[in-house]
């Protein structure tokens, strides 16, 4: 089992000093290589869940284990390192560094830790997303679909054991969205990565091996 969530709570303080509870007693178990879709209304807490899985935020209570390690018990430095080694993230808005070329964007997470073969590995990753010939292009020279493919390459280049995607096709038109999701599922299948996908696109959710509905703070 790669991911195990038990009794997870998350609340945010509000201006009127009352907390709003976004996640309430959430439980989830994901096996290695599974693809899981999380669907739910806007504001239901999907991104909140992902940000905690990515180690970018901490839960209010409950347990959150990835590969058997309790995320909430890790120090900030440890967590950063854990994320850099195990977790790939894909955002709705792509978030490429505007002043770096495609290949530089992809190699960023490797170079940051001084991997020797970062060039070769990033080139491979770009090849995998079908953008080998766009290596030296800057983000503003790429279309939305291409940008997201570069972002996917950047997420997989570290060979993460778990891939988190927050509405990866949300900013793309239908046709491009389908292209990108095809690519994503192909990659997941060939590498055997675990995928946790947040979307409100039902078709996209259907392609996952399991679908979960997030409703008033927990899965139904």
């Amino acid at each position, binding site marked *: 089992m790669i991911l195990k969530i038990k009794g997870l709570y998350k609340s945010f303080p509000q201006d009127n000093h009352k907390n709003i509870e976004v996640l309430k007693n959430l439980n989830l178990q994901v096996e290695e290589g599974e693809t899981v879709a999380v669907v739910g209304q806007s504001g239901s807490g999907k*991104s*909140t869940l*992902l*940000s905690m899985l*990515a180690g*970018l*935020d901490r839960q209010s209570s409950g347990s959150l284990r990835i590969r058997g390690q309790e995320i909430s018990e890790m120090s*900030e*430095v440890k967590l*950063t*390192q854990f*994320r*850099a*080694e195990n977790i790939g*993230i894909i*955002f709705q*808005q792509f*978030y*490429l*560094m*505007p*002043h*770096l070329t495609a290949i*530089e964007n992809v190699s*960023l*997470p490797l*170079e*940051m*830790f*001084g*991997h020797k073969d970062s060039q070769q590995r990033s080139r491979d990753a770009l090849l995998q997303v079908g953008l080998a010939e766009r290596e030296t292009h800057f983000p503003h020279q790429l279309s939305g679909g291409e940008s997201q493919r570069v972002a996917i390459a*950047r997420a997989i280049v570290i060979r993460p054991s778990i891939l988190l995607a*927050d509405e990866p096709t949300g900013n793309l038109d239908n046709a491009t969205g389908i292209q990108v999701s095809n690519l994503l599922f192909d990659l997941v299948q060939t590498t055997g990565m675990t995928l946790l996908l947040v979307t409100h696109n039902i078709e996209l959710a259907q392609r996952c091996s399991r679908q979960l509905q997030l409703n008033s703070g927990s899965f139904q």
Partner: protein
Amino acid sequence: MKNPPAFFWFKLAFRKLLNNRRFSIFFIFNLALGLAGFIALDSFKVSLDNHLGQNSKAILGADVALTSYVPFEENTLNVLEEKLPQNTLSTRKITLFTMVAAKNISRLVQITGVEDEYPFYGKMILKKNGIVESENIEQSLKFSDEVWVYPELLFMLGLSVGESIKIGEKIFRIADTIIDDPSSSFSSFGLAPRIYLGYSQMLETGLLSKKSRVSYQRLYRLPEGADLPGLNVELKNKINDFEGSESKIRILTHNRAGNNLGRLLGYINDYLGLVAMIAVFLAGIGAAYLFRNYLVHSFREISILMSLGATRQQTYRMVLWQLGLLGTGSALIAIIISLGILPLLPILLKQFLPNGFETQLSPISLMFALVLGGVGSLVFCLPVLSRIRTVEPLHLFHENIEQKIVNSSFWKKQVLSYIPLLILSWSLSVWQSHSLIVGSVFVGMLLVSILFLGCIAWLVLAMAGNLSQISGSTMKRLAFRNLQRNRTGAISCFLALALGTLLINLIPQIYQGLQEEVSRPDDFRIPSLFLFDIQQEQMETLQKTLISEKVNLNYLSPMVRARLEKVNGKNFVYSDKVALTREQERQQSFRRRNLNLSYRTELSDSEHIVEGRMLATNYDWDSGKPAEVSLEVRYAERMGLKLGDFLTFNVQEVLVEAIVTNLRRVQWNSFQPNFFIIFQPGVLEDAPSTFLGSIGGLDASGKLKIQNRIVSDYPNVSVIDVSRMVERALKISDQMVLALRLMAYLSILAGLVVVFSIARHEVDGRLWELNMLKVLGAKFSDIQKMIQIEFAVLGIFAGLFGVVLSLIMSYGISWWFFENLWKWTWPTSLASIIGVTSLSVGVASLATSRTLRSSPLTLLRAS
């Protein structure tokens, strides 16, 4: 897991800056302008120090010298010279001031008698005969009684080379003029040009016995590697053992001679340095503003990096690299700019500079520039930098939720982040001014000004918000609204403009009063001539002579030379440690043991008692009480003396006890003879004394007539033309003010660059809404008008309050330092308000016109 290669973060930072070229260029140029003046000044200062260091031996003409006001006794000299190392060379020199006359004109000159081997260091250069060989300098002079003179003397007296001149009782032939005298100094302000003659002829002039103030010097050239400081101490100890006039022998080492020369220039440089600091400060405000916006735009990228596994520390490091690169870039550009400014400084300060002085950009200044560029940009941007703390990669998941983690610790840290800035400014200004007090007062005033102006800006902007509700046209309303909305930008602009205005007004405003006071031509309070060295027995006849010429000798004061032995029973010590600050330096130059005393009861109209009571009229020797003395208040402060202190003076080997009975403030700009120490009558009358006095109300021909009469009848009396002296002083201070003004203009330029970059930035940030206005039907001219109103409002208020603050400060400074010589010239104030306003509007229009002209089509393209 490994660490990234060392240059990884550097590379990332560099790429980012290249990508944000416009920001980088603005930041660099902005800061460079501020740094340039500072660097130029520093180079100038270093060059000067080097020059003086290298030339201090030439200035003294020796390694070390002994000076005395009486001829050296053979025995005394033997005792002292025993201490000198073997193979020390020596030569003699005598200097005195006297009047010389030729063709109905007479002038005060400095006569210098030298013998062979003078000078040991440096070369004297003559116009006709070139370099003087010091081995036989006296020989060449003695040969047919020749003298060499400074060229200006020929001009003053209407003489030319080859003609003769009478010095004392002897007639000499002017053989040559001196074009380079390594020992020349500006201390006499060129009032007494020099004449060189042979040592033995000096004795034949007959002046030595008549003059009260003759300086006898022995110059020594020590063998290579001699221990000068050690020798200095040994000689000093020996001299302390002497009694009588022997104990008044002074030791002059070459370092000290160089220091004296550098002191005046040092003062000027100090103040220039402080003004240049304001330019740095203004540039810093601009840089911080630019950086703030840049950083806020970088927050997303920082988040991305963190989500990819970068730690917060690492992202800090990247931003620090960026700042370092920007700072270094600024420093490099600043160095280039300062190469342009540097040659100007020697031209501006020509009057003060020693011959052969050249400015060079020293490696030390370059290092300093780089460090200041890096550290400075870091320190200025630290308060902004600390905002990285608030970056949360979490936001990448929720674009639209703004997270605020503003708690008390945030504010605490925010306040703390300003502390390095305070420390840097404070240490820079203390270092620049060489004075703890001046430096601290300067930073304090700067801080108070910024706080004051900041509050005003805040109020003005709040007011603008209210105005927007009642004012008529749409554009006006929008302009006022914008001012209220973009507070940081508006306040930064306001501060930059107001501080610049403050500075360019402050210096002329202070100077105005001084100049007015001093140059009033019909003011009879300023005397025409100063007479000194009058012997007691000449008094009566001199006064008769003057009465026959229908003039009065005023403020006649006796002058008695004495030495301060004890203060409250303890030996008076004067230290000669190396002075670190200007205060110490000044204190040391005041803490002399050899003093000039005078005596009288009445106060002159240019002085008043600040503490204590009037001196009693006549001293009663039988009372056994100490005599009463009055001290000038600032002199007392520097000497560390208070009301009621007991002083023991040695007046020609007679010990005189005195008690400080009052402290007096003297208005020195009255140019009347005045003394730091005044005794009550009845004490010093029997001591050998000379007199000085002044003559007022003479026109040019009257002055000439009196001067000539005195020179022919009383050759030992020296006469100084006061109006000429005042003229010289004014000319010199004109130059100083010009140099200060130049620096002030540099700082207003830095302020305008701030306005330029802020205006451009604000408009770029508002592009979307400006284009929206265009789509809704606003014309280019309407939008331009809106921007112009914004910056006109900022300009008017910044100018107004800058001027107001400059008036307050100049009043304070004039009141404190110059006895309330203050005069408001409202046209200048008005002109600078109008000037600043139009510059502000002009620069803002220039900065924004391209963006404003852009087609609203961009609205569709940019998403």
